């Protein structure tokens, strides 16, 4: 299919299904925590605006969570269908981590989700809050295990190899807390929080542009902008630390990210842009700041930096993808920082709910978190190629005994199905977001309101009058 062999098709299928999947956990990790905060504020202050916001975002959460679940099941079986050699060899190490993810996280989320979505009147506010909290905690535990598993593949530790060629654990603590895990975990959880904040902020801004006095949009916009203001700079610092960790354990990935084809004996530049020419082995039209690369990565302007010219070609990751994905992520991170600072300035001037430029900026940044998360994952996953277990098991040696038509057909099926589901899901979520939260906002499994003129605006005005 398309002249690709079975390995390339299997990689395309994994890339496609995991990129689609990560969108939903990135959103639901942050949104579950946000819902827990909203419910806690409602219980604490008894202000209706928090309950209305809770029910408003709960409906969106229900859709996003459902899409995350079904796309996640695909992931847990794809290891076997397309990557059976990997599953056989790595299963003894990765398998238990994923089994613990299911046991400690997935069941917790799914078990309490029903009560969270539909059970408020049945169990009362206290128990209901407990259910919300369990779902939120479940999403974080899930992140813990799956990032541990992914990090082990990036920076394997605490393992041995047995007679059958399988990786086995020699020390479970070293497996779980492998060298890159803490950085990746913090980076991803913060990314999920930022992603959610940007979505919530964009929805709030959208409704503030129409009516700056609605209490629901004001509350969510303010909360979201606090999140962006506080977390964006922390995320940049964490990302920097993560980069230093990568330099220590996966230097070749850094070379690709930075576009360092050549070694630099006395101080490497920081290339802002350029055109990586993999065949020629150089960065064309490079625009760089001398010595800054060494300063950032080695904290010394004259520190030597090895380049891809020191690495055999067959161990190179795909440089252009790694190079560009990294720049997309960093660029969006800088814009998030800018949004946070802009909102802080306007907040200080008392114009947070009034500055239309800020609101437009926030709306434009609504999808930025998703794009940054995907770009970040593309950077780290592409940058560790050509290995599935870094330095130990090659991607080409990990696949099932596959035939291209079978992988191609299943890839095609997933592409078609995911586009249908994605289009519909995004449409329904956007439709929910297009309405501001109302007084007496209904929960999930309720009918979409009949949109006759008069009803919804009136409800908004009533809520505005009560809440402000």
């Amino acid at each position, binding site marked *: 299919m398309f002249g690709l062999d079975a390995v390339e098709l299997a990689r395309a299928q994994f890339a496609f299904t995991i990129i689609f999947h990560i969108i939903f956990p990135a959103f639901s990790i942050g949104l579950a925590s946000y819902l827990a905060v909203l419910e806690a504020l409602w219980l604490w202050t008894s202000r209706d605006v928090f309950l209305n916001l809770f029910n408003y975002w709960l409906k969106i959460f229900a859709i996003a969570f459902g899409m995350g679940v079904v796309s996640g099941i695909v992931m847990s*079986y794809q290891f076997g269908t397309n990557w059976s050699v990997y599953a056989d*060899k790595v299963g003894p190490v990765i398998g238990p981590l994923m089994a613990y*993810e299911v046991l400690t996280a997935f*069941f917790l989320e799914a078990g*309490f989700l029903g009560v969270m979505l539909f059970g408020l009147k049945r169990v009362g506010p206290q128990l209901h809050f407990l259910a919300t909290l369990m779902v939120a905690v479940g999403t974080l535990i899930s992140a813990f295990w799956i990032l541990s598993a992914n990090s082990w593949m990036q920076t394997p530790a605490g393992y041995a190899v047995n007679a059958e060629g399988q990786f086995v654990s020699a020390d479970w603590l070293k497996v779980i807390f492998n060298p890159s895990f803490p950085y990746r975990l913090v980076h991803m959880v913060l990314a999920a929080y930022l992603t959610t904040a940007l979505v919530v902020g964009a929805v709030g801004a959208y409704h503030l542009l129409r009516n700056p006095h609605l209490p629901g949009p004001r509350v969510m916009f303010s909360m979201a902008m606090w999140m962006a203001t506080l977390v964006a700079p922390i995320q940049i610092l964490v990302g920097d630390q993560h980069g230093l960790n990568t330099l220590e354990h996966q230097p070749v990935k850094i070379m690709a990210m930075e576009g360092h084809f050549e070694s630099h004996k006395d101080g490497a530049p920081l290339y802002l842009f350029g055109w990586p020419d993999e065949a020629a082995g150089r960065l064309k039209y490079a625009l760089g700041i001398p010595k800054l690369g060494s300063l950032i990565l080695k904290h010394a302007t004259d520190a030597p930096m090895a380049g891809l010219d020191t690495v055999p070609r067959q161990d190179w990751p795909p440089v252009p993808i790694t190079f560009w994905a990294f720049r997309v992520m960093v660029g969006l991170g800088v814009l998030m920082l800018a949004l946070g600072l802009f909102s802080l300035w306007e907040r200080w001037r008392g114009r947070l709910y009034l500055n239309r430029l800020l609101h437009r900026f926030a709306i434009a940044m609504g999808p930025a978190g998703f794009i940054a998360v995907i770009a970040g994952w593309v950077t780290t996953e592409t940058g560790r190629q050509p290995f599935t277990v870094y330095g130990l098991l090659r991607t080409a040696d990990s696949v099932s005994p596959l035939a291209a038509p079978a992988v191609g057909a299943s890839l095609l099926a997933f592409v078609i199905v995911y586009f249908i589901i994605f289009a519909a899901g995004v449409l329904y979520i956007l439709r929910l977001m297009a309405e501001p939260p109302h007084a007496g906002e209904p*929960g999930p499994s309720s009918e979409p309101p009949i949109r006759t003129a008069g009803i919804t605006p009136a409800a908004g005005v009533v809520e505005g009058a009560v809440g402000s």
Partner: protein
Amino acid sequence: MSIAVDLATLWAFIIALAVFIYVVMDGFDLGLGILFPLFPAKHDRDVITNTVAPVWDGNETWLVLGGGGLMAAFPLAYAVLLPALYAPMIAMLVGLIFRGVAFEFRWRTRAQRNLWDIAFAGGSWVAALAQGIALGAILQGVHVEGRHYAGGWWDWLTPFSMLTGVSLVVGYALLGATWLILKTEGELRDRAYHISWYLLFAMLLAIGAVSLATPLLTIQYAQRWFTWPAVILTAPVPLAVVAVTVLLLKNLAEKRDGAPFFLSLMLFLLSYAGLGISMYPYVVPQSITIWQAAAPERSQLIMLPGVLVLVPLILGYTAWAYWVFRGKVRSDSGYH
């Protein structure tokens, strides 16, 4: 056969338990999707989906545990079986995607609700059929060389796997119908009773057909079931099926709402026990035993406390969730 309780056997039991819990729990909600075409009225469909809306997510998580657990505890079996079952597995996943999102999507649109109802029904049919086919394909054995699946892409497709596929659809539909008896009232429940009669007879036919066809697959299955002294262990299974059937008929006739669902589960449990008797100690029949497929001891050991502590806990809070949403679902208000 000797039953040595070692780590591999214990894990085989744990995985089998996870798969059984999955079959039971997702079985009835897939069954609702299978029965969807028989209930075209919107308000019936709202009630039907509301009976499982709070719990379907948890039900499906057992499938993830089955898959993840198999990879962790028996990586070789996972690595051989999934490529062997490639097409049915992809079909199952696609089916589960459609029917999973339909739960939420059908509430979010008026114009396209019918489309998502079709997705819900179609996805349930495909997922159930694919699971049944996969079961048959495993039972009939797969071609293994070294540590790899070495058969073709269509090996799974045989009359036997078609039979098990259809049988599982029938079985899930019976679970779904008796679940509706338990959870609904009025005209909807009466129709569920009516449907259950037909489905019970279809299920008995299916059990009979699979039971007769399985020993014909290989001589090992026949010996397992019909030779002395193994027959002491195997003979009670068909007898118990007869006993449960009689009870089920009686309760359907007397219209006791609470009983048929649990008796249908008993039928599933007995069929499942029968499968276990046929397969043990193979995880890939006639090719790979549970000991050959077992992950290194350290991997199986590290997960054991997790399973022994967490699974009872999970069953506990799952039971609580079912308890919260106990009772009949009203046609007008759902759970709200």
